[in-house]
């Protein structure tokens, strides 16, 4: 039975660290599969693990507007987090379903389930490219993974309200672009889902048969996330590794 958490931290670094703690805890046998939702009340930029900062971020604008830049441990592209961007994080056993054993297979499986759940609610959402969900040919969700021996962390955004102007002010046009994007800029490529966050959560829960009320995280998870946020996600050596 998958655990449901709905927990957002004030500090961006703790939001990022907590996802890692969920994966570490599962890999270490302390917890099982988990679905988590979170949303930041303040804007911040998040790089994918191997992205080169100066190629992805308009750093001067971020500094001028006091929008901090962080780096997550999973792959994928650069994201502007903040209000209007709901995040879901799944920690899944690799042997829980045959398609989870491969990277492409796992994206198809996870995003296939979510898009089917959206369609059952009347929203024409489709899995596009490797790691996107799209509606009407425009991206509504980006996704990324970190894979360990027994478990994978798959997390994604669900845009229900975003500010294209701020996105273009902080995020450069990406070098890695899915074919369906074509030459479109952020403003022309992204769109908001016409669905409120509570219903978005219900759709994702439905996709993975997760029911009931969200649980409270364990005390050690909160401690571990605070420590990891401080030691890694707030460290310039990590943020500026590339």
């Amino acid at each position, binding site marked *: 039975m998958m655990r449901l958490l709905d927990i957002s931290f004030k500090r961006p670094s703790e939001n990022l660290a907590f996802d890692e703690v969920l994966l570490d805890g599962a890999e270490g046998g302390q917890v099982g599969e988990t679905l988590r939702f979170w949303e930041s009340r303040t804007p911040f930029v998040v790089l*994918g*693990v*191997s*992205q080169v900062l100066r190629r992805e971020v308009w750093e001067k604008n971020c500094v001028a507007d006091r929008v901090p830049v962080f780096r997550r*441990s*999973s*792959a*994928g*592209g650069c994201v502007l987090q903040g209000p209007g961007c709901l995040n879901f994080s799944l920690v899944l056993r690799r042997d829980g379903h*045959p398609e989870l*054993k*491969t*990277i*492409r297979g796992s*994206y198809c499986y996870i995003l296939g389930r979510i898009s089917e759940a959206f369609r059952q609610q009347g929203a024409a959402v489709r899995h596009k490219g*490797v*790691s996107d969900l799209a509606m009407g040919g425009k991206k509504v969700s980006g996704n*990324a*993974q*970190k*894979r*360990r*021996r027994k478990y994978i962390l798959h997390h994604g955004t669900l845009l229900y309200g975003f500010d294209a102007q701020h996105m273009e002010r902080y995020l450069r046009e990406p070098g*890695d672009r899915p074919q369906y994007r074509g030459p479109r800029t952020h403003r022309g490529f992204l769109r908001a889902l016409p669905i409120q966050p509570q219903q978005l959560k219900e759709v994702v829960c439905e996709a993975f048969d997760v029911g009931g009320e969200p649980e409270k995280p364990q005390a050690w998870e909160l401690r571990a996330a605070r420590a990891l946020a401080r030691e890694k996600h707030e460290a310039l050596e990590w943020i500026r590794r*590339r």
Partner: protein
Amino acid sequence: MLNMSPGHLKYTEDHEWIRDDGGIFVVGITQYAAEQLGDVAYVELPETDVEVEEGAEVATVESVEAASEVHAPVGGIIVEVNEALEERPGLINESPYDDGWLLKIEDVDPEELDDLLDATEYEAFLKNL
């Protein structure tokens, strides 16, 4: 284009390969793993002179699609890492069994090699994925 897993290597179910270079064991990831990841963008390699156990996470290979951990096929001491990957992480895609090696381990217990798959067994494992 490489289609078959080289016969002189041994393999793990996590898609690592290992080669005995006269007592120094060279480790990398298989063509299958490299293809799964897509274009490798960065490799986080371990420190040298570090002792590791079999199965320990020793490196992370990162692409746009996933960040994937690499595990030590055997225990021992990491004596060298492939510094060429710093500038050319794509060597893992271009030459996964040769120039794209990741690290070297010595002081290996030979019995741990017996637990690994040979090329035929690895190919059979891949067919069942």
